[in-house]
């Protein structure tokens, strides 16, 4: 199930809220939330739910074991065993086919290619449990003694499918007891509606244009169209993912949880490093705390550490070499930026912002095309194409002109420009305070309209 579906919005969500708020008892609330989370996961993945439950209980046991043997070798062995188990499951289910293809290319393997589908959310919950056992080993958190509570932490439907990667330490106390009031629920409602709007009215609209300009006959497109397609893909990626994170954060609030922010206006970044401090923050922090710093951080082998982190970040995004290339691309950029820091600090902000955007938009090509032949052809088109732009691109730009304006407005970090006590901010908050019930209702209805229309299926696909 996904948040942006009618089934979720109008059946799962109201039912889960009704059950949750039907009792003031925290135990019952946790039981309801766990059951609903499992139903949520099993809606699309009835079989893979057992893998998720196994992962949860294995790490629950590991956590108790590590804590019991704190400061002994057994704790270290337990932690390493748990990490290896988690990574093995991730590698088997996510990278099995990829590894098979690559090994089989050189050596003929005596068994057939694994054909499983990717278990939904495995990349996210694996990192959650890894951070959990490592944090216990480091003595930063206490192990959760109640297996139900731990299963709830792992399976919370708000973060299960697409993150953010929630650390146990962030919601440790909220797992036991949550306080909710009108203000928090209201904030949750607003955040959820904005996220839903971003996903349905921005990302999905951009997605149609991405399909038109990138999923096409590449030998026919002009450089303008190639760049336009990449910009659309950049918009789609950001609004899709950040919209989903907004919805997750909003939904968490509805049930009394506080998740950390996962995006902070990344397209306002003034360097590539700055971009990734604003983009998918929970993933960046995971790699920082569990890979980069243990490798030595900026104290020793700094460049190597950056490369390793970005190579892994690339592969985390998908089991294909283009993702490794994408990660390496950013590794190189990070290292170059680091060495040019003195120069870059002196150039105007506008220049820094522009070069960052160009490099980020270009990187989307490495992310989009999993086929290297297509990628090579497309990059060639980006910089030189004999094709003249079609009339369609102009009509697409004019037909989306207001929409583009809205996209730009939503990418601007207004909260950074107008600080906490800025008069503009305070006045806006007062006005928005009154308007937001209506705004949220309209956003919800608009999203509903577009979701209903997405089910409009006049052309019967005949399965022959």
């Amino acid at each position, binding site marked *: *199930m996904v948040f942006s*579906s*009618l*089934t979720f*919005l*109008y*059946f799962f*969500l*109201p039912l889960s*809220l009704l059950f949750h708020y039907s009792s003031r008892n925290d135990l019952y609330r946790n039981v309801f939330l766990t059951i609903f989370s499992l139903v949520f996961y099993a809606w*699309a993945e*009835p079989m893979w739910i057992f893998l998720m439950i196994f992962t949860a209980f294995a790490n629950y046991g590991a956590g108790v074991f590590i804590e019991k043997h704190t400061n002994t070798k057994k704790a270290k062995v337990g932690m390493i065993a748990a990490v290896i188990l988690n990574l093995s499951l991730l590698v088997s289910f996510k990278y099995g086919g990829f590894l098979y293809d690559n090994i089989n290319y050189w050596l003929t393997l005596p068994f057939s290619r694994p054909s499983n589908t990717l278990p939904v959310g495995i990349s996210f919950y694996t990192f959650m449990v890894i951070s959990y056992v490592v944090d216990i080993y480091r003595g930063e958190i206490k192990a959760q003694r109640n297996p139900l509570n731990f299963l709830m932490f792992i399976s919370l439907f708000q973060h299960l499918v697409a993150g953010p990667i929630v650390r146990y330490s962030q919601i440790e106390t909220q797992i036991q007891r949550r306080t909710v009031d*009108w*203000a928090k*629920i*209201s904030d949750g*409602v607003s955040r959820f*509606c904005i996220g839903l709007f971003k996903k349905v009215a921005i990302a999905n*609209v951009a997605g*149609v244009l991405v*399909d*038109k300009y990138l*999923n*096409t*006959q590449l030998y026919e497109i002009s450089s303008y169209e190639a760049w336009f397609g990449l910009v659309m893909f950049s918009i789609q990626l950001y609004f899709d993912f950040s919209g989903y994170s907004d919805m997750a954060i909003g939904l968490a609030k509805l049930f009394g949880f506080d998740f950390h922010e996962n995006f902070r206006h990344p397209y306002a970044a003034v360097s590539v490093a700055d971009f990734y401090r604003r983009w998918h923050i929970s993933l960046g922090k995971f790699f920082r705390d569990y890979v980069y710093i243990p490798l030595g951080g900026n104290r020793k082998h700094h460049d190597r550490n950056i490369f390793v982190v970005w190579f892994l970040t690339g592969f985390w995004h998908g089991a294909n070499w283009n993702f490794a290339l994408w990660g390496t691309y950013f590794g190189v950029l990070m290292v170059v930026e680091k060495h040019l820091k003195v120069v870059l600090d002196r150039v105007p902000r506008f220049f820094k912002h522009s070069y960052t955007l160009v490099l980020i938009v270009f990187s989307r090509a490495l992310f989009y095309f999993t086929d290297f032949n297509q990628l090579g052809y497309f990059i060639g088109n980006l910089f030189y194409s004999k094709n003249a732009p*079609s*009339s*369609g691109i102009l*009509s*697409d730009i*004019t*037909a*989306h*002109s*207001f*929409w*583009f304006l809205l996209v730009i407005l939503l990418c601007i970090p207004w909260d950074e420009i107008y600080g906490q006590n800025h008069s503009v901010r305070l006045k806006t908050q007062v006005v928005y305070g*009154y308007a*937001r*019930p*209506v705004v*949220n*209702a309209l956003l*919800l*209805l608009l999203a*509903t*309209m*577009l979701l*209903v*229309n997405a*089910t*409009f*299926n*006049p*052309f*019967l*696909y*005949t*399965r*022959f």
Partner: protein
Amino acid sequence: MDKKVNVLLFFSLVLGFPILLLILPKEKASKDEKRKLAEFPVFSSQSYLSGIWTKLVDDYIDDHFPYRERFIQTTPLFHAAKGFQFKNAERVVVVPKKKEKSSDTKEENLDTLSFLDEFEENFSGSMLIIDGCVYPLGGGSPKMSKYFAKMVSEYAEKFPNVRVFSAVAPLSSAFIPAAKYKHFNVQNKKTLLAIKENLTNGAIFSDVFEELNNHATTKLYFGTDHHWKPLGAYYAYVAFCKSAGLEPIGLDQMTKKVKYNFLGTMYQYTHDPSVLAHPDTMEYWEPKVETEAYNLGAYGTTKGSKAKVFYNTSSGGNTYSTFLGGDHPMMRIKTSVKNGKKAVVIKNSMGNAFTVFLISHYEEIWVVDLRYSKQNLTRIIQENNINDVVFAIGMYAAMSNGTIGMMRRLAIQSGNYVAPILPEDPSDEVLPAVNPVPGVEDTLNPRQ
């Protein structure tokens, strides 16, 4: 206070719609979409574990969401608000491939296709909109024509005493009224001529393109629908008559009728306001011939339900169903033309408007929809002493692996459903293909 209002308003919406869904009466079919709406699925552990049950529940909620049609009709306002919309501006829109509905094409529904009508292909890709008319941007590929021609030729070889005709309709892209799209005219022509060049065993080519092209200044295709207008079908009939040695009946010798405000499939694809502003008018002609028609269902050739050649009450989105009442697996038409001649028309929906003109020339016509009929066509042709077999199919479908596979299946199936050979994706061939079409050679290999 505003916080409470915010929360309560949100909750009343997310609770209100499901309550409405539960209490409001449910439609069984969508008139606009011409399809049956999903039914609530029966639960079984097997369907649940395979993930089908949950998908069917999603489909059910999607299909029966309160005020669904109202929401759909309001959507163009959002699209219009995205930017400047120049009235009648020329533009290209991309129709994404629609998701496959789990509830579609159940075997048990094949005998009652009242809502399938003409929706046989999953049109997708680039569509050009000019002056409120929609044209698919493509023109087929001569490579695919070769395979289609080979299949038609196999029929000619199998039935040496029967005349076998290929009467494939071009796409409306052949007649886009703008010079810069003339290359689609050429592409359509090349694709169809490639059929002619590859026909063997005495199979006969009806030059539908040439006849239509000679009248290209007249509007031959609907602007809001993917079918040809009856006038376009008439010129195809003239082309067929020329190739079959028949004298076509003049339009003035038939009864002319008109229907207004037709918004067809192309509007449903695009929901474009300029298309909405240009609904089609359909002029059509009824030959002055008495007929008696029966729908025979997918499996039976003896029993049948009474049917008509012209359904004059079809209107709105169903206007094109005026001809034969839409698509049915098999229809048998007996006419007052007592010349002893019998024809089989193997068609998709493009053939419906064409077939109605043939009643002036045959005593009996078997209309076979190659997608839905499960009967063995060989037996029907042989047992009924058929004289002519006509393949009257739109190019979009004719050039697909699926159709070629189905043409083979029709001739060899035993009366029970036989899966076609490798019909991987029947929809992706006519519009210029991004990838080559795998498996085409295989579909032409005899099964045995």
